[in-house]
């Protein structure tokens, strides 16, 4: 599967600014229990249903400096209480091409992960953007090698669908060439390695 980056000026605050760029529908699968990073999570989630977000529509755009990722996906009808909906894009590391993206990187070959988290429980339309390094499913730590281009994000629900924009340094995708998508249905208490992910890398043209 592949996806193209369109040249376009995007306003992070204008969720309609991707306009008529064609979306690519990406299917997601449950992050397997056996790749979870510790015994607790393996034991506790062995018999749990998760990975509720089955697909995401993705659009990519860039100006010369930034990559803009537009992700739209269905918002569960179950209200969120403890956990909020979230989605992320991660970038295949140079030597991680043979790894499956379902682990979102590994200790040996971490990937860069840009995550958007809905924080509307605090303030209407408040988005949180996280610039992370991922060493495995949920093994996320803040990216200590961030460049000068800050990861930003925005999102809102329109007609039962999340419309999210995440943006960061264009270099990330230029280096990686392959990306993965990970999504969490907060109403199902999904977060960290409990979510759904692309089962194969997506080539970026």
């Amino acid at each position: 599967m592949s996806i193209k980056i369109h040249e376009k000026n995007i306003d992070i605050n204008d969720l309609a600014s991707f306009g008529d760029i064609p979306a690519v529908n990406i299917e997601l699968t449950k992050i397997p229990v056996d790749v979870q990073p510790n015994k607790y999570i393996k034991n506790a989630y062995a018999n749990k249903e998760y990975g509720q977000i089955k697909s995401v529509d993705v659009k990519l755009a860039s100006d010369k400096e930034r990559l803009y990722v537009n992700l739209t996906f269905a918002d569960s009808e179950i209200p969120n209480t403890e956990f909020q909906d979230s989605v992320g894009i991660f970038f295949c590391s140079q030597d991680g091409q043979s790894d499956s993206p379902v682990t979102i990187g590994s200790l040996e070959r971490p990937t860069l992960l840009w995550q958007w988290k809905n924080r509307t429980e605090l303030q209407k339309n408040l988005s949180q953007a996280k610039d992370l390094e991922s060493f495995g499913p949920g093994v996320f730590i803040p990216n200590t090698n961030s460049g000068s281009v800050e990861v930003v994000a925005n999102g809102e629900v329109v007609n039962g669908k999340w419309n999210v924009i995440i943006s960061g340094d264009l270099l990330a995708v230029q280096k990686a060439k392959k990306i993965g998508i990970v999504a969490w249905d907060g109403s199902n208490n999904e977060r960290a390695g409990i979510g759904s992910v692309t089962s194969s890398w997506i080539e970026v043209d």
Partner: protein
Amino acid sequence: MTEIGQSKVQHGNPQVAMVFDLNKCMGCQTCSIACKVLWTTEPGEEHQWWMTTNTQPGLGTPKGWEDMGGGYKNGEPAEGHQPTRAEFGGGWEFNYDEVFYGGKGRSVHLAPKDKGDDTTKWGMNWDEDQGSGEYPNSYYFYLPRLCNHCTKPVCVSACPSKAMYKRTEDGAVLRDEDICQGSRFCMEACPYKKIYFNYVRDIAQHCILCFPRLEENVAPACARQCPGRLVFVGMLDDENGPIHKLVNEWEIALPLHPEYGTEPNIFYIPPLSPYRLNEDMSIDEETPRIPPEYLESLFGPKVHGAMAKLKGELEKARNNETSEMLETLIVYNWLDLFGPFTTDPSKLDRTPDKVAVTIGATRNKQN
């Protein structure tokens, strides 16, 4: 993929331990307030009470925590429930302005604002003094609780980001809040449900064993402010200290729910109670007011030996014999409670400038 497994059990490192003597606890919540005013007054911390005292039997805080799972079963980390914001309740905002200055008179009264999230339906001490049993043989007692700073901290092993760690200096179980991603597996795994979530900062938080105080040889705030003089603090392996004697020698200080398998470092002297009364209101000398099986459900089977020992020593004291154990429990000198942590904080130079220097040194040491 490399497994990030259970944390290494760090036997042999210094461990600060505490013993709470439940026979002195009056449930006043001074420990809770002492902790609250010092550590959890920032936004997102309103509902956080790292130290709480609850009435037992009861649902406590978070509501029904003893039925929420977690800990170890058969040596394996067991599934646990992540306590919700509503199950903790509290963190209320009152309508002062409306009542006092709103010009509405008696039509409004002071009450927590209902934000539609069920947080006004429970609180950190909601079932205070309710207890169990039947009058006049009802029973209850107070149980102060904080993070157990376990020797086998299941929370540490449940964190996917490796944000949590057990300090080698004092055994405090902490979290690097710069790393924490708010995934809350620690809250699920902790069987004592003593971890809170900061919804503003998107991180979990819990009792830090007052490590900045320990670093200055000052006792933790809950212990030092306790007017009931019931909290012993010290190094667990100090054979000359009261904690070692109470826990290991006399075996009257017991961990809470030892079956959870995390090896707590907070211990309790189990509660005595007044005589039960028979139906004709005569004294029942045989049946303890607090059912022993209830105490066993909290403190494990060792509680029976501890109770017998305690009662036996009390009998000695009433016959004017000296009991080393009871003399230890009396605590004639307040500072004797605190082992090596007897420094008066007001004597410290903790100006922000000075603390910044300390922090700089710590940072250098860690790097």
